[in-house]
C-alpha cells in the first residue's frame, strides 16, 4: 500500500486542523512527519500521528494553539518556551531563528522548553542545508535507558542530528539515537518473535537480556551496550549530554522528573530541544569547502567493502535514496498504520488518505 507524500501531508494537516491546530502549524507537522516516512524512518512518521499528537491534543494534554514566549534572546541565541504546544512547529520556529541569527552572527544556538515530541531530529538539522550552514539538533525524551552499570531509567533515546551541506554529493546527515536501538525496535522483535541482540536491553534489575518482552519492564542500553567493554559509557555520556543541553540548559524538565516512560498518562510539556546553525563561510570559503567535502564523501564511498557487502554508505545516504524513491513511487505504509489512519479519519469526519491506484 502506497500513498503520495503530498497526500499524506495533506491528511496530517486535515487531522490536526480538525482538532484545533492552526493551519500553518499543522502544515509544519505534516511536513516533518512525512519527511520521516519519506526517509524510511517509519517509527517517527504518521504511525505516531494519533497516539503522540492527535489524542494528546484531544485530551488537552498538548495545547493546540500555544503561546510562545521568548525567555531570553541575544544576537547569537534564543530560548523559547513553547507553551506546551506540539514540538514540530516550535522547533521549526526556533531553528529558523537560529539560522537567521547565524546569517548575521556566523553561528547561533536556540533552545526550546515546555515542548513535546518533535519527530525526527534530522529534519531540523537539515533546515540549515539550503542556507549553506551546518545544522545541529538534539532533544531529550521520556526515559527509556539505563546509565552504564545502572538499573534505573535515567535518560531517553536522546538523538543527535548533524547536517552538513555538500556540493554535488547529497548532504552528510547523521541522525542517531544515543541508545543502541530504539524502543520501536524491541516492539518489532517482540512482534516477530525474535530474540534481541546482546547490547540492546536490560531487565528490571539491570541485567542484560535477549527477551523482547523485557520492553514492558526493562530498559534500553546506551550505544555501546552493557558496561564499558564496547564503549557503553560513551553512549551513556552522549545521552546525558543531550539531556544537559536540552532540559538543563533550557530550564525545562530533566533527571528524575523525566523518568516517566511514554504512556497515556505521562505529563506533557516535559520535552526540551537544542538547535545550532554554523555558517560554513564564517570559517572557510564555501566553494572550496564544497569541493573538499564532495571529495571526502566520495573517498568513503570508494573505499572497499567487506565480502558480502557491495558498497560503503555515508550518513544520510540511505535515507536520501529512500526520499528519491518514495517521492517518485509513493510512501509504503504497512497495514496497521493505514488502518489506524483510516479509523482516525472516520472518527474525525475527514477524508481518508488517498491511496495510489494499483
Amino acid at each position, binding site marked *: 500500500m502506497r500513498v503520495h507524500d503530498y497526500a499524506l501531508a495533506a491528511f496530517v494537516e486535515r487531522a490536526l486542523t480538525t482538532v484545533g491546530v492552526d493551519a500553518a502549524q499543522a502544515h509544519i507537522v505534516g511536513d516533518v512527519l512525512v519527511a520521516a516516512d519519506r526517509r524510511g524512518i517509519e517509527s517517527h512518521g504518521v504511525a505516531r500521528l494519533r497516539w503522540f499528537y492527535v489524542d494528546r491534543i484531544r485530551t488537552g494534554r498538548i495545547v493546540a494553539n500555544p503561546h510562545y514566549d521568548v525567555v531570553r534572546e541575544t544576537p547569537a541565541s534564543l530560548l523559547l518556551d513553547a507553551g506546551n504546544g506540539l514540538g514540530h512547529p516550535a522547533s521549526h520556529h526556533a531553528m529558523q531563528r537560529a539560522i537567521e541569527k547565524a546569517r548575521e552572527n556566523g553561528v547561533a544556538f536556540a533552545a526550546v522548553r515546555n515542548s513535546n515530541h518533535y519527530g525526527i531530529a534530522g529534519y531540523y538539522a537539515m533546515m540549515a542545508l539550503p542556507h549553506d550552514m551546518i545544522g545541529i539538533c538534539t532533544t531529550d525524551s521520556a526515559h527509556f535507558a539505563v546509565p552504564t552499570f545502572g538499573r534505573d531509567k535515567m535518560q531517553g533515546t536522546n538523538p543527535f542530528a548533524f547536517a552538513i551541506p555538500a556540493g554535488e554529493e547529497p548532504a552528510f546527515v547523521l541522525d542517531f539515537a544515543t541508545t543502541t536501538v530504539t524502543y520501536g525496535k524491541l516492539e518489532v522483535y517482540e512482534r516477530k518473535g525474535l530474540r534481541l541482540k546482546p547490547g540492546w536491553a536490560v531487565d528490571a534489575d539491570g541485567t542484560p537480556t535477549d527477551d523482547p518482552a523485557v520492553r514492558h519492564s526493562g530498559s534500553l542500553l546506551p550505544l555501546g*551496550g552493557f558496561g*564499558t567493554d564496547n*564503549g557503553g559509557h560513551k553512549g551513556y555520556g*552522549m545521552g546525558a549530554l543531550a539531556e544537559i543541553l536540552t532540559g538543563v*540548559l533550557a530550564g525545562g524538565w530533566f533527571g528524575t522528573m523525566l523518568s516517566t516512560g511514554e504512556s497515556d498518562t505521562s505529563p506533557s510539556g516535559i520535552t526540551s530541544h537544542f538547535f545550532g546553525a554554523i555558517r560554513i563561510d564564517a570559517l572557510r570559503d564555501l566553494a572550496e569547502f564544497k569541493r573538499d567535502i564532495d571529495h571526502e564523501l566520495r573517498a568513503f564511498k570508494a573505499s572497499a567493502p*567487506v565480502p558480502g557487502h557491495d558498497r560503503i554508505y555515508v550518513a544520510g545516504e540511505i535515507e536520501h535514496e529512500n526520499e528519491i524513491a518514495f517521492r517518485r513511487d509513493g510512501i509504503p505504509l504497512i497495514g496497521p498504520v493505514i488502518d489506524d489512519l483510516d479509523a482516525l479519519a472516520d472518527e474525525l469526519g475527514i477524508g481518508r488518505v488517498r491511496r495510489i491506484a494499483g
Partner: protein
Amino acid sequence: MIGEAPSKIRAHEAAEHDFIERALRAVGLTESDANDVANVLVAADLRGVESHGIARLDTFYVRRIEAGVVNARPSYTALCDGPTQFALDAGNGLGHPAGIYAMRKAIEKARESGLAFATVRNSNHYGIAAYYAMMALEHGLIGLSMTNSTHLAVPTFGRQKTQGTNPIAVAIPANGHAPYVLDMATTGVTFGRLEVSERKGKALKPGWAVDAEGRETLDPTTAMTKGALLPLGGYGTDNGGHKGYGLGALVEILCGVLSGGMFGTALRLDERGLHGGSVGHFFGAFRIEALRDADAFQRDLARELADFERSAPAPGAERVLTAGEPERENTERYRREGVPIDPKVWDGIDAMAERLGIAKLERFTVG
C-alpha cells in the same frame, strides 16, 4: 582508561612537567610552547589516560621534531578572525600549543559574542581532547574539542581505514559538583587497548577490531598489524556501528574539511611513523548566559549529575558514574600519590633523556 592496575613506579607531577619541558626545549621549542605540551601530557597521565601522556613524548613529538617532519618553531597564520570564528594554520607545529592558542581565541570570542568556534589545520597530534574543552570551565563556559588523526578505523561494512579514533570532548561547568567532562574516541576502543590485550596475551572482545578483509577478529596481533579498529557500536549495524562511523566521519569533516586541512586518503598514515602537519582540530566555546542564567544552570546540572550517581546500580556493580568522574578521581589520587608510569615507558624516556643529554625523570616506588 586502559584497564590495567596503575604502575607502582611513580613520578611527581611537577617533576614530570619539568622533564617534558626540558626534553622539548632540548629539541628547540620555546619555553611557552614546551610548557603547553607539558601541561597537556601531565593532565593526561594524571587523569589516568596513560596512552596520551608521557608515553608518547618521544615517539609522537620529540622524534618527529628531530626528524624535521614537525616544526619546533612554527609560525601561525590566522586564516580568518571574526567575532564568533577563528581559523588557524598551525605551521606544522605541535598540536598542543596550537590547540591551546585556538581554544583561547574561541573562549575570548565567546565571552564577547556568546559563542564561538575555532578550527586548526596543518597541526599535529594534540594529546587528550578533554584538555582543551576543560579550558572553558574556568571561564564558566561550555567547551568543545575534537581532532582527526591518522586513520585506524574502517567504516561500517568497510575494510579500508577511512578515519582515526577521532575523539570528541565536551566540558560543562557545574556548581556543587565536579564538571561534566565527556571525552570519547568514536571507535569502540583505542589502539592502545589492543596493545594492552596483546601484552597480556588476552583475546579482544567482539566489536573492537577487524582483520585485513574487514572480518571481525579477536586476535590483537592480527588487528594491530593487518587489521583496523571498528567504530563505536562495533561491526555492522546491529549494535549501532553506523553511529560510531558517522560520528567519526563528522569529526573528520569538521577537523579536516572545514579547517581546509588534510582529510580522506591523505590521512592513511602509519600511526607511529614520522610525519607532520596532517592533523586538524575543531574547538567551540559557549556562554551559558546566552541561553540561561548561569547560576541556575550550574545548580540544576549538579542536581542532574547527582541524580545519575544516586540511581541504582546493576547487580555486581558498585555505583553509577558520570562522565569525567573516574578521571577526576584519578587526578586527585595521582596528585597525592605520584603519577604512575609504565615500566616500558620509563625505559623509553630514560633512553630519550640520554639521547638528548638531559637529566632523567626522577622516580619513586609506591607499595
